[in-house]
């Protein structure tokens, strides 16, 4: 069928677009099936088909590996960077769908809409990271953001979820507007919206101190900084992460971050590479500031989702260091860290989802007390995830940090001092990551057992974030534990055998043509 279509419209490379087509197709099917009356179809078939469409998208990405071509008249770029990030989005999407299966959010928001929105958001991310044109950048950004605004508010009977959605909508729109303004300035300075043409214009003309260009760069950094939660544009992150349904938080934390960094890499390391002296120092300062703000902000948190939100801010700072050095090694280190970051965080969020369902404490750190003695299958993934985020050896987080420092201390690099900030940030981060580990293993469980609490309060008030009316004291369903164990194990495996991931990342690094 594909070949027939190809014959009819030779301009469109359907093979190259196949991951995008799979995800959009899945979104349409999920939306349509969600209209059926049968509960079994809505609650089982819709998530299952959504997962299938994401698996197809992953398979298509693997199939397209090694292809490098322009799609849709140069609006999108198909290369290994696009493909590896596509795979990351799809993995995050699958994990999120598995975590939200039997969760309250899709039930309240209607299953069809919930899954269709999630898939649309993933499609937006794919468009965003493959964009090599300012217009498609904005298109992808909005396609990714608007479904997420809605998804944050899908637990409609919980005020904090609605608040989270509204906050994200307002702040995100400001970010989008800033970005759009910045992109307009960039177009004004270079006279083109195409990345290749922009780079050529910058190379040809003496634009390095052009105020139009500088304003454009500043506004673009600010706009993308909102999406990547780079300080000082991170203030929405803790509130939104805390209020959103946890599976959506997990998805936002890993996939949105990867999408934002994907576009940052392509925009700055391709289109604006010739003026890297213009954006390098301010971006480096932002990275250092972000590392400190994120880590210090996380110190006092008792809500695990807020803690991970601040941690994600700090991790964004680490990854920004890889962008700033503007070398192929830096690009590879950033992509490597994005992959590693996804694995570590999904393990942690799966445990939070499990505990939200098992205890009435929501995502409070107290929900982890005594976990080591009672639930080793949840305790170990969470412990590994925390140690990995802190950068302990034998976990993927260590290799990721090692790679970033490696990129920052290269002899030709001007940003060796960023390595010191990464290290100082890691030192501060120990205090809160170890607090979580101590809660798991070294604090006995509270006296009240889940059964008593469930019996005592038939309708527990959703006072705490995520502590919704499904906290019935039941054991977490198997699929949540499976996600936690899978990603926890993967964190260790990638920490000991990172070579396959290095190979993949090296291909992605070669795609952008940096030295």
């Amino acid at each position, binding site marked *: 069928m594909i070949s027939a279509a190809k014959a009819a419209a030779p301009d469109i490379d359907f093979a190259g677009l196949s991951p995008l087509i799979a995800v959009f197709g899945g979104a349409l099917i999920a939306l349509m099936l969600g209209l059926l009356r049968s509960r079994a179809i809505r609650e089982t078939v819709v998530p299952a088909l959504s997962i299938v469409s994401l698996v197809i998208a992953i398979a298509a990405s693997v199939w397209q590996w090694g292809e490098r071509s322009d799609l849709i008249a140069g609006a999108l770029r198909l290369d290994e960077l696009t493909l590896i990030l596509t795979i990351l989005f799809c993995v995050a999407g699958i994990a999120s769908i598995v975590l939200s299966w039997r969760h309250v959010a899709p039930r309240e928001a209607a299953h069809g809409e919930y899954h269709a929105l999630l898939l649309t958001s993933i499609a937006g991310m794919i468009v965003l990271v493959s964009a090599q044109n300012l217009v498609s950048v904005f298109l992808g950004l909005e396609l990714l953001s608007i479904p997420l605004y809605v998804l944050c508010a899908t637990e409609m009977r919980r005020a904090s979820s609605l608040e989270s959605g509204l906050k994200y909508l307002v702040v995100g729109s400001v970010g989008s507007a800033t970005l759009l303004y910045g992109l307009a300035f960039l177009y004004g300075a270079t006279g083109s919206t195409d990345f290749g043409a922009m780079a050529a214009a910058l190379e040809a003309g003496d634009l390095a101190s052009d105020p139009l260009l500088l304003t454009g760069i500043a506004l673009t950094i600010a706009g993308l900084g909102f999406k990547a939660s780079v300080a000082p544009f991170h203030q929405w992150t803790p509130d939104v992460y805390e209020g959103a349904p946890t599976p959506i938080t997990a998805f936002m934390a890993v996939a949105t971050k990867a999408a934002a960094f994907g576009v940052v890499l392509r925009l700055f390391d391709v289109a604006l590479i010739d003026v890297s002296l213009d954006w390098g120092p301010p971006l480096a300062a932002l990275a250092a500031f972000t590392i400190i703000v994120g880590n210090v902000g996380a110190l006092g948190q008792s809500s695990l989702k807020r803690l991970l939100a601040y941690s994600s801010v700090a991790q964004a700072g680490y990854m920004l260091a890889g962008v700033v050095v503007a070398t192929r090694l830096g690009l590879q280190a950033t992509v490597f860290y994005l992959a590693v970051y996804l694995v570590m965080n999904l393990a942690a969020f799966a445990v939070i989802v499990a505990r939200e369902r098992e205890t009435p404490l929501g995502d409070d750190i107290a929900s982890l007390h005594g976990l080591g003695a009672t639930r080793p299958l949840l305790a170990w993934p969470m412990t590994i995830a925390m140690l990995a985020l802190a950068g302990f050896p034998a976990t993927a987080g*260590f290799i990721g940090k*090692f790679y970033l*420092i*490696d990129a920052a*201390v290269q002899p030709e690099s001007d940003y060796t001092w960023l390595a010191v900030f990464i290290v100082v940030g890691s030192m501060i981060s120990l*205090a809160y990551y170890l607090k979580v580990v*101590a809660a798991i293993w*070294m604090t006995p469980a509270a006296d009240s057992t889940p059964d008593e609490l469930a019996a005592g309060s038939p309708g527990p008030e959703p006072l705490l974030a995520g502590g919704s009316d499904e906290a019935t004291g039941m054991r977490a369903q198997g699929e949540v534990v499976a996600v936690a164990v899978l990603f926890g194990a993967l964190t260790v495996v990638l920490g000991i055998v990172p070579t396959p991931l290095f190979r993949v990342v090296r291909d992605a690094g070669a795609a952008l043509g940096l030295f």
Partner: protein
Amino acid sequence: MTLHLSFALWIPLVFGAAGLLLPARLAPKLAIAGTLLVLGYAIAFVADFDSTNGGLQNVTDETWIGELGIHYKLALDGLNLFLILLTAILWAACTLWATFWTSEQASASPRLFYFHLALAQTCVLGALMAQDLALFVVFFDLMLVPFFFLTGIWGGAKRVQATMKLVIYTLVGSLLMLTAAVATGVLAAEGAPKLSFAFADLAERTLGSSTQNWLFLGFAAAFLVKMPAFPFHGWVPDAYRAMPLPVLALFSGVLSKVAAYGFLRVCLPLFPDASSHFQTLMLLIALASILYGSAMAFTTTNARLILAYSSIAQLGFIVLGIFALNTQGAQGAILQAFNHGLVVAPAFFVVALLAARAGGSEDIRDMGGIATRAPVLATLFLIITFATLAMPGSSNFVGEFLILMGVFETKMAIAIVASSGVVLAAVYALRLFIRTMHNRTGPRVEPREMTVRDGLVLVPLVLAILAIALYPQFALQRSEPTVDATVPSAFEDAAASGEASP
């Protein structure tokens, strides 16, 4: 027959992991079996060691992460041979000790306890065997994780705060070391064909002396905190109070030595200019550690802390020997590291026995007067005490003598002050012995002899002390070729480059 270091390295972890999965009653047996196997391997390593060869022996070299130039390279030489033996001996003894301890206190989740204990042994052995800087850093940092859990779960009062303090203190140092290590590899690779962290490659690629200086400080931060040396010892009192005693014996007996070993393995060969540049500073830190540790050891009354501060003083001697930057000093430091480990672990065991006889109190004011009722225990403790205070005839005497001789050759004034440390050691060691064994019987003391079971732990350790006392040459001969090959050459290089650049 070639002995593969990998087996000795991973046996503890494999046994520990097996113990985690099998029924709980098997866990202690498996753990002991694992440590005994490693001990067998370690003895075989020593027996098999070619004492005329100053290079690496029993080398295992595989590429681990090619993209980052990290090798899985393990080898034996004169620097790590006896520390590996020490690790094997102490782990066997302390694991055996822990099996009494867990059954007595019916501790929670013994499987997890033995798993962490075994993981710790693998990490320590890995740090000692590693011949690749990145691999060394991996194991050095990782060995903190099991101790974090061992202290935090099975420790005494205020254990969580203590373990947090311990980990944050030591990891701050370790992270500086991580940056310095990455920078060492990357900067050394400039102009070289390929990024490599193997010590052999790094030693060939000399760095500029200002680069060396900051890299040296990064490593020194990690090692001085871990040892601990005087101004960096803030975590010591809390952590030593909170750790369970078998774990503490290992921590004090082995982990501090790994840090001292780091100076010999990393700093002296890779940063020769910086080592001589910071020689006086390091000697002064060592001197301060000796004086401070000794003074605290004879003023405090908690038996654990007496041993803790005496360790600070003893580690001061070891650093002193290393930064004499000559063969005698380094030889003495290696011997003294081995000696101190052998002495301090049984001392902690005796403290545990004494505390059990003094109603659980570890304060020396509550102890005393049991020597006549427990003559065997008193005799064994006396041997340990004499070894601690470096009685002539003990191996510690030889070690301290060599160290002081080494320092006399380079910095006379420091050596004179440092010799007072030998006298101070006699004061605190004898004070501990007299207050616990003689003196007036404490109010809640129930004097009783140690059991045969206790003897299983204590007697082999004391025999090891006597053996090395009779024939310290055994250790010195084996370490000499390597020390000759690494330490003086590094120092001469520094002297030569110092002359070359007036």
